């Protein structure tokens, strides 16, 4: 029943490690997003993919690399993790249609870098 799901929900890792977060949606949407929520709860978009094509790439370090194997999946790989990467990462999806633009969010992945 879950519309947008993310794994894992929690991720604790050491500085310098590489980790991935996975996202899947079963809403039939063709556009997916990654947002970052920092310790002050501020939310900011990182990336967006439409039909497996990168369409939004905000000013994010190139240690972050999104990958979309198909329309229903969007993964986020982070290399050489830093303390400042600790945050909650949200995946979202929507339809690429100006009349159906509402974004639906996953439950978030809390990443803690030690």
């Amino acid at each position, binding site marked *: 029943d879950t519309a947008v799901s993310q794994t894992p929900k929690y991720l604790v890792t050491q500085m310098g490690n590489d980790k991935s977060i996975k996202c899947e949606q079963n809403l039939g949407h063709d*556009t997916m*997003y990654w*947002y970052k929520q920092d310790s*002050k*709860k*501020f*939310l*900011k*978009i990182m990336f*967006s993919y*439409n039909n497996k094509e990168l*369409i*939004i790439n905000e000013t994010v370090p190139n240690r972050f690399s999104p990958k979309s194997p198909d329309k229903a999946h969007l993964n986020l790989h982070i290399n050489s993790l830093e303390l400042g990467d600790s945050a*909650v990462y*949200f995946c*979202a999806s*929507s339809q*690429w249609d*100006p009349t159906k*633009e*509402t*974004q*639906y*969010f996953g*439950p*978030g992945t*809390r990443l803690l870098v030690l």
Partner: protein
Amino acid sequence: AQTVTQSQPEMSVQEAETVTLSCTYDTSENNYYLFWYKQPPSRQMILVIRQEAYKQQNATENRFSVNFQKAAKSFSLKISDSQLGDTAMYFCAFMKRDDYKLSFGAGTTVTVRA
């Protein structure tokens, strides 16, 4: 870049009473969408209500309603008959039409007291 301002970091309301959250935004666009999302302690981002800028009629979803003042660039959320389950952080968000990128305010924490 669009700026979304939520000037109330925290609000408290008695159960069954009404609370109004303010949101202002800065844009030179004419076609855009506005949203309110709720983030309860579970961390899930839940869509509360959306408004299309070209519609003058204020959106309503059950106990949630907005007061959209386009000229003033204001988009406040009213929660009527507050319930304990309304306790959450509420985010106002802006999206330019065809942009597919949500810009969020800093959030307002609402606590409903029994």
